[in-house]
């Protein structure tokens, strides 16, 4: 096989630190049991904020993965990414050594980067003066540092980058990493998304855009994608990482294979900074491109892990996009939003949802959309309400859309040699 021939790309390792579980097994158990990750904010005093709840990662101890000094010089978004990456490598039983290091890359997306350190240091700047600002502020804050630090802590010396496409960043990272392996630039890629933006400024900013749910009196029912009473998304945090590997490489070392990635579709609305193009036309085209890329027909798709943010605009728009992309077959498939459980991890969401999609294929079970009480009349698909379900999943799509009009779809397929 020459480099001019596309290589097949398989998922051989998964890692997840999420609002509903800090290990892969715990995350999957949470998805299957419909665990709710939303609660009042504990990471800062949110009493003056219009939105006072979020889906925080609970009980994450960075020192399980990093020594004290290393942990201290990383913002939480990078800690989460390095931790999930280490989980994925361990899950894959993949060792990076002198022989393969240059063939293993990292591509980790984030919507925002190290916002906590930026906010803390601006406080220092205003109260103590600019010459008191930490020399670690810039390296801790910059969005690419999750990928940079993951390389430092795993030894991966291959292609390394970071996508910063808002809430599509994690899926762009997986898609671009898929291309790099497919085209022979790396034998394996550590890829996914991370975010830790449950901070005072971030919550204030998202509240100001009217993107968040304000259901302060009942936070556990706030993330309710496709339900008629939804009023916005719930901010989440965490990281989801996949180890993608060139198929022959994976087979040669006897790796377990969760799924194959076969398609990647990317479009832009070219319409509005935060809004979505009515009818989800370009979102539909991203799904169509991903299917075409993977040589798939709509009839092969059995599950869509929806972007499903629980905002008034997204859910009917995405429903329309799914119907445009899949035609009548849209009514025969399962569509669910795991954000109903995890909240919206922004750039991290594509990562943990890629993990969920690969697991759905591996286990032939699909996660539910919880808090689904009464459908929005414009949302008329099978959203797997409230209970996970056994379903043979040969092909699944994972959608992510981001501020800026980014539309990304990944196509996963059950691995058959």
């Amino acid at each position, binding site marked *: 096989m020459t480099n001019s021939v596309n290589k097949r790309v398989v998922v051989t390792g998964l890692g997840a630190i999420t609002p509903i579980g800090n290990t892969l097994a715990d995350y999957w158990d949470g998805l299957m049991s419909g665990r709710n990750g939303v609660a009042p904010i504990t990471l800062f005093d949110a009493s003056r904020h219009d939105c006072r709840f979020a889906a925080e990662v609970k009980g994450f101890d960075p020192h399980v993965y990093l020594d004290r000094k290393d942990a201290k010089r990383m913002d939480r978004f990078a800690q989460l990414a390095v931790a999930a990456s280490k989980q994925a490598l361990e899950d894959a039983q993949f060792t990076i050594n002198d022989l393969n290091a240059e063939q293993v890359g990292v591509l980790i997306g984030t919507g925002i980067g190290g916002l906590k350190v930026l906010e803390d240091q601006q406080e220092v700047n205003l109260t103590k003066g600019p010459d008191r600002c930490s020399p*670690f502020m810039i*390296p801790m804050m910059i969005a690419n540092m999750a990928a940079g630090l993951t390389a430092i802590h795993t030894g991966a010396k291959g292609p390394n980058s970071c996508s910063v496409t808002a809430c599509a960043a994690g899926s762009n990272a997986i898609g671009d990493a898929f291309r790099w392996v497919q085209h022979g630039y790396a034998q394996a890629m550590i890829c996914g998304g991370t975010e830790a933006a449950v901070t005072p400024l971030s919550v204030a900013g998202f509240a100001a855009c009217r993107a968040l749910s304000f259901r302060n009196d009942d936070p556990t029912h706030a993330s309710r994608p496709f339900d008629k009473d939804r009023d916005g998304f719930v901010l989440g945090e965490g990281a989801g990482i996949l180890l993608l590997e060139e198929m022959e490489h994976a087979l040669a070392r006897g790796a377990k294979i969760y799924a194959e990635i076969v398609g990647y579709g990317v479009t832009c609305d070219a319409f509005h900074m935060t809004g979505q193009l009515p009818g989800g036309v370009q979102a539909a085209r991203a799904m169509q491109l991903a299917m075409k890329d993977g040589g798939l027909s709509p009839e092969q798709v059995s599950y869509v892990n929806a972007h499903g943010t629980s905002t008034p605009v997204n859910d009917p728009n995405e429903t329309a996009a799914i119907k445009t992309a899949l035609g009548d077959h849209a009514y025969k498939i399962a569509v669910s939003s795991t954000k109903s459980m995890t909240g919206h991890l922004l750039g991290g969401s594509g990562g943990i949802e890629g993990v969920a999609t690969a697991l759905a294929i591996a286990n032939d079970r699909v996660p539910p959309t919880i808090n689904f009480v009464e459908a929005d009349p414009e949302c008329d698909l099978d959203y797997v309400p409230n209970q996970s379900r056994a379903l043979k999943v040969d092909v699944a799509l994972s959608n992510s859309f981001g501020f800026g009009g980014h539309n990304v779809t990944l196509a996963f397929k059950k691995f058959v040699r």
Partner: protein
Amino acid sequence: MSETEIFEKVKKIVTDQLGVESGKVVPEANFANDLGADSLDTVELVMALEEEFDIEIPDEAAEEIATVQAAVDYISNKVTASA
């Protein structure tokens, strides 16, 4: 402030900032070679010492401070001079 008091304060700051065991923070310990401080750590450490002792350590002086004892000596001089 006695030199012992200064040493104890320096030791605590160095332990916190560099994430090293306090037992390693002995007078002759070299920040870079023995305690693993890189260039960013050094800047942060100097800022923490400035804040703790309410002094200014110019960059030229900071570059000369290679060991824990050197830091204690420098601070002792400054603190005594301003007392």
